[in-house]
C-alpha cells in the first residue's frame, strides 16, 4: 500500500500548515484551534482522532456538563455512597461488607440501525462498566421505548431489540429483573434502548480506572481489534494519510456475548488474586478513551506501543486502532511481577491478552507506531478538558398552550357500561398490557438468586445466602409527564422508581439515570433538559438518594421533531432479608385492600387520556416527595413486620391497572367499594402520585391502620380480595378471564 509518510509528532511539528479534516471528525473550528493551542503545534492524525472522539458529545458531555454538576452540588449527605459520579459506575454500601454498583446507559441510535446487535452491544457495554468497578454483575434491566405499537417499523425494531437484549444477557448468565416497554409515536425513528446492570462486590474489591506506579504494565485483553465504528477515523486515514482507499469499515458493531462471559470470569479471577492496579473497559472511543482516562486518573504518564494491539483486520491504520469501538475488550494496569500470572489467567479462559504499554514517570501519554511517536499529549486534556458549552435554553413558546389544554376537562364515561368499557380498553392498551411476550424471552432465574423479577414492582436479588441480604432495583420514566412539565416529570420518574423499590420492601438508597432528549442545539430541548436535571437533582436531595452516575443521550430526534423529554430513573434499594419481600400478586381471599395516599382528579398525561382520548395536555400529577418518603417508610415497615401480604404501586393507569395486575398475577379477584368523597372514575383512573395498593390480612388490620394513622398517612379501605372477578360495587363486574384476555393478548397480536 502506498502511504504518505507516517504523521509523527515530529512530522506534525515540522509541517504546521497541513490541514487536517477536523470538521469531518466532528470538531468545531474553535475546538480544533483549542487542540492546537494545547499542543503548541498542529495535532498528528492520531492525536486528532483521539481528541475528536473524546471531545464528542457522547464522551465529553459538553452540552450537558454544566447542568449535570447539580447532581454533585445538590447531592444529599449519604454515608452509603462509596464511589460517586465520574467513575465507570457509582458504588453504594449495602451493609455486611457488601457494596453494589449499578448504572444505566443508552444504546438508542445503534439499536435503530441494527436492532439486534445494537441492543446486544448495549448490554455488553453496561456490563463491562460494572466489571470494571471490581464487581460481579448479578442482574440487568432494560427500559425500552418504541414508536407506535401498530407501526410497521416497530415490528422490525422491537423484536430485534428484545432478541438482542435476551441473546446477549441470557448468554452472559445475567438475570433480567426489570425494565419498561413504552410505545409512543414520538419515538418512531428514535427508539430508546436503555440498559442497566447491577454488580456486587466486597468493599475491599472496589477498583478504579487509574494507572499508577511507573513501570506497571498496561494489558489489553479480550477480543481482537477490528474496524468497528470508526467512520470518522477512516476519513482521516483515506483523505489525509493514505492514497489507497481504506477497506470497508463496518458501521455496525457485532457483539460476542461468549467472549464477554469469558472476560467477566477472567477479570474476576484476576481481581480475586489482587493482580490489578487499575482497570478500564473499552467502550465508546475504545483505546483513545481507555488510555487517556487511565493515564489522566493516575499519578504518572503512559507509553503505549500500538503495534502490539492484536488486530482482526491487519489493514487498520493507527488512527483507526485508536478509535475502534470493537466490543468485548478491557484494559488493565498490572505490576510487572504479576503480569505472568495475569496472562496465565487469561490463557486459562482462552482470552487473548497482550502487554501494550506501561505506566511512566512523566505526565504524558505517548503512543508509538512502527517505532515512531504518533501521540504525545497531556492525557487530562484529552479525557477531562473537553469543551464545555453553555447552550442557550428557553421555555418553548408552546408550553403554555400545552399546559392550558387541561385533561381534567376531557369527557368522562357517562354510564357504568362506558366505565367498564374504558377499563377493558385501558388494560388492553399497548402501554398497559402485559409485557410477558417480551419478558419471557429473558432469563430470570440464572445465578439462583432472583427473588423478584417481572412483572413485580422492582426486581430483587439476594446477595448473601446466609443473611438473606438483598438489593432491589426499579427503573421508571414517563415522557408524557415530562413533556407537560420536565421538572415535575423528572421528579415523578424518580418518585415512581423510589416507590417501586419501597413497595417490594426494600429501602431506596441511590439513583442512576439515563437522560434521553432531542437536540441540544434546540433551545426548547435544552430547556427541557435543564429543567429535568434540576428536578431530578432537587428531588434526589430531598429524598436523600444521591445520583451515583448515569448517561445522557442527546440528538434523539428526526428533523425538527424531538422525542418527548425522557429522563429514565433507576433507584437501587436494599433489604435486610429477602424473605420479607412483598410481591404484587394477591395472596389470599378475604384480605383487605387499602389505598395509601391521596387521590385527586389528576389526568394530565395519564394513560386514560392517551388511550381514550389520544390526548396530551394539562399538568402532570403533583409531586410531594415528603409524602413519597413517608409512604416508602410505611411500606418498608409493613413488610418487615409482616403486616401486608401484597403491595402494588400506583402509577400510569391508576388504581384499576394495579388491581387488575395484582388480581391476574394472584389468580384471585377483588371487590371494590368507592369510598366517600370520590367518584368511581377518579378512583379508578386518576394518576395521583404517592400512592400504593396493599392487601392486609384481617388479623393485621388494626396494627396496620394504627401505624398509618400515627404517622399521618391516609389509608382508605377500598375493598377485599375475593372471587374470580374484579367488581366495582354499583358499577360493573369483569371476570378475571375477560381481563386476562384483554391484558395478555395485545402484545402477541401486535408482534408475534
Amino acid at each position, binding site marked *: 500500500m502506498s502511504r504518505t509518510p507516517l504523521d509523527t509528532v515530529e512530522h506534525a511539528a515540522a509541517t504546521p500548515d497541513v490541514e487536517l479534516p477536523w470538521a469531518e471528525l466532528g470538531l468545531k473550528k474553535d475546538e480544533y484551534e483549542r487542540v492546537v493551542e494545547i499542543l503548541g503545534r498542529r495535532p498528528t492524525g492520531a492525536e486528532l482522532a483521539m481528541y475528536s472522539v473524546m471531545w464528542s458529545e457522547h464522551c465529553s458531555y459538553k452540552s450537558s456538563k454544566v447542568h449535570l454538576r447539580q447532581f454533585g452540588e445538590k447531592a444529599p449527605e449519604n454515608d452509603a455512597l462509596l464511589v460517586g459520579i465520574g467513575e465507570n459506575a457509582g458504588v453504594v454500601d449495602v451493609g455486611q461488607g457488601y457494596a453494589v454498583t449499578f448504572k444505566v446507559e443508552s444504546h438508542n441510535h445503534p439499536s435503530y440501525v441494527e436492532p439486534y446487535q445494537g441492543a446486544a452491544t448495549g448490554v455488553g457495554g453496561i456490563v463491562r462498566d460494572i466489571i470494571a468497578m471490581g464487581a460481579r454483575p448479578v442482574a440487568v434491566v432494560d427500559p425500552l421505548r418504541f414508536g407506535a405499537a401498530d407501526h410497521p417499523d416497530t415490528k422490525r425494531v422491537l423484536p430485534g431489540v428484545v*432478541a438482542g437484549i435476551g441473546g446477549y444477557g*441470557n448468554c452472559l448468565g445475567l438475570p433480567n429483573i426489570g425494565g419498561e416497554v413504552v410505545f409512543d409515536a414520538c419515538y418512531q425513528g428514535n427508539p430508546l434502548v436503555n440498559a442497566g446492570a447491577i454488580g456486587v462486590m466486597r468493599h475491599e474489591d472496589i477498583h478504579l480506572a487509574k494507572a499508577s506506579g511507573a513501570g506497571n504494565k498496561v494489558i489489553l485483553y479480550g477480543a481482537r481489534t477490528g474496524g468497528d465504528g470508526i467512520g470518522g477515523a477512516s476519513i482521516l486515514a483515506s483523505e489525509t494519510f493514505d492514497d489507497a482507499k481504506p477497506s470497508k469499515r463496518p458501521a455496525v458493531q457485532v457483539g460476542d456475548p461468549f467472549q464477554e462471559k469469558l472476560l467477566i470470569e477472567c477479570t474476576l479471577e484476576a481481581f480475586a488474586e489482587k493482580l490489578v492496579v487499575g482497570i478500564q473497559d473499552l467502550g465508546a472511543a475504545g483505546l483513545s478513551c481507555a488510555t487517556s482516562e487511565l493515564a489522566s486518573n493516575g499519578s504518572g504518564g503512559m507509553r503505549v506501543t500500538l503495534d502490539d494491539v492484536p488486530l482482526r483486520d491487519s489493514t487498520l491504520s493507527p488512527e483507526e486502532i485508536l478509535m475502534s469501538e470493537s466490543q468485548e475488550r478491557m484494559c488493565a494496569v498490572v505490576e510487572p511481577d504479576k503480569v505472568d500470572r495475569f496472562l496465565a489467567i487469561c490463557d486459562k479462559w482462552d482470552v487473548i491478552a497482550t502487554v501494550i504499554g506501561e505506566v511512566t514517570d512523566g505526565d504524558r501519554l505517548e503512543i508509538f507506531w512502527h517505532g515512531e511517536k504518533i501521540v504525545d499529549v497531556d492525557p487530562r486534556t484529552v479525557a477531562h478538558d473537553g469543551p464545555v458549552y453553555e447552550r442557550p435554553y428557553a421555555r418553548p413558546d408552546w408550553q403554555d398552550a400545552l399546559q392550558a389544554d387541561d385533561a381534567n376537562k376531557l369527557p368522562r364515561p357517562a354510564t357504568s357500561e362506558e366505565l367498564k368499557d374504558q377499563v377493558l380498553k385501558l388494560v388492553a392498551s399497548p402501554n398497559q398490557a402485559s409485557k410477558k411476550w417480551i419478558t419471557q424471552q429473558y432469563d430470570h432465574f440464572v445465578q439462583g438468586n432472583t427473588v423478584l423479577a417481572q412483572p413485580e414492582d422492582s426486581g430483587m436479588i439476594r446477595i448473601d445466602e446466609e443473611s438473606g441480604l438483598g438489593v432491589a432495583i426499579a427503573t421508571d420514566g414517563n415522557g408524557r409527564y415530562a413533556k407537560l412539565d420536565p421538572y415535575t416529570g423528572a421528579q415523578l420518574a424518580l418518585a415512581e422508581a423510589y416507590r417501586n423499590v419501597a413497595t417490594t420492601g426494600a429501602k431506596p438508597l441511590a439513583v442512576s439515570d439515563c437522560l434521553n432528549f432531542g437536540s441540544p442545539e434546540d433551545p426548547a430541548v435544552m430547556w427541557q433538559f435543564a429543567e429535568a436535571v434540576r428536578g431530578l437533582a432537587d428531588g434526589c436531595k430531598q429524598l436523600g438518594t444521591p445520583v451515583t452516575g448515569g448517561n445522557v443521550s442527546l440528538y434523539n430526534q428526526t428533523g425538527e421533531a424531538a422525542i418527548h423529554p425522557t429522563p429514565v430513573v433507576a433507584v437501587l434499594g436494599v433489604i435486610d432479608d429477602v424473605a420479607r419481600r412483598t410481591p404484587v400478586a394477591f395472596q389470599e381471599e378475604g384480605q383487605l385492600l387499602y389505598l395509601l395516599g391521596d387521590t385527586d382528579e389528576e389526568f394530565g398525561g395519564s394513560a386514560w387520556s392517551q388511550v381514550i382520548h389520544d390526548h396530551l395536555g394539562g399538568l402532570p400529577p403533583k409531586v410531594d416527595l415528603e409524602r413519597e418518603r413517608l409512604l416508602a417508610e410505611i411500606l418498608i415497615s409493613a413488610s418487615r413486620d409482616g403486616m401486608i401480604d401484597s403491595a402494588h404501586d400506583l402509577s400510569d393507569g391508576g388504581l384499576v391497572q394495579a388491581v387488575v395486575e395484582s388480581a391476574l398475577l394472584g389468580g384471585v379477584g377483588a371487590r371494590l367499594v368507592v369510598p366517600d368523597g370520590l367518584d368511581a372514575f377518579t378512583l379508578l383512573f386518576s394518576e395521583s402520585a404517592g400512592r400504593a395498593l396493599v392487601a392486609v390480612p384481617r388479623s393485621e388490620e388494626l396494627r396496620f391502620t394504627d401505624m398509618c394513622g400515627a404517622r399521618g398517612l391516609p389509608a382508605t379501605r377500598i375493598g377485599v380480595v375475593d372471587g374470580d372477578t374484579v367488581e366495582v360495587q354499583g358499577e360493573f363486574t369483569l371476570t378475571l378471564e375477560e381481563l386476562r384476555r384483554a391484558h395478555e393478548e395485545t402484545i402477541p397480536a401486535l408482534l408475534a
Partner: protein
Amino acid sequence: MTARIGVVTFPGSLDDRDTQRAIRLAGAEPVALWHKDKDLKQVDAVVLCGGFSYGDYLRAGAIARFSPVMEPLIEQAKAGLPVLGICNGFQILTEAHLLPGAMLGNDHLHFVCRDQKLRVENAATSWTGDYSEGQEIHIPLKNMDGRYVADERTLDMLEAEGRVAFRYLDVNPNGSLRDIAGITNEAGNVVGLMPHPEHAVEPLIGSGRTDGLPFFTSILKKLVNA
C-alpha cells in the same frame, strides 16, 4: 460419608455455581471440574449444567462435547457413572451420543423462560428415585434450543423402554416431539432434561418452589446406599 458430585465448568457455563449450591442443599459435596482437565477427581456422579458453552455457537453443546473432560466422562458414563445433563448439559449429552436424538431451536424461534409443568414418567433412574412415577412438578425452563427430536423408531423405542423420563404438561414450550422434556439411557444412570431443577431448590428464590431438589437427594441416596 456423603457423596461427591462433580459439576463441570465449560467456558460459557452459567449454572455451575447454582448447581453446586443445589448439591450442597441436598447434603452432598459439590466438586468443581474444569473442562480442560481429563480428570473427574474420582467423583461419584457428574452434573453437566446449563449455560451457553462456547456461546452455543455451531450447535448447542457441539463444541463442548469435544472438551478434554468429556473423554473420561463418556467412558465412565458408559460404565455406569451417574451423569445428569441439565439444559446445555442435555444438549452436550446428545451431541456426545450418550443420549439419543438431538436438540434443535425452539419451534417459535424465541428464547423462552417460564415455570414449566412436567410429569415424571420414570422414577427409577439414578436421578429420579425421590419422585413417584406420574408425579407432576414445576421446574423453570429457559432456553433457545430446547426442541427434542429423534426419528420415529428411536422415539418408539424410548417410549417402549420407559426412557422418556419427563414430559411437558399443559404447554409444549418448544415443539419437542411427543412433549419430551427429558430422557434417560438404558441403564438409567445418564439422564438429560431441558428444565432446570437447580433453580427450584429454595422457597422464595427463582420459581419459589422446591420441586427440583429431589434430583439431588435422589442421587445422594442412591450413592450413599450403594
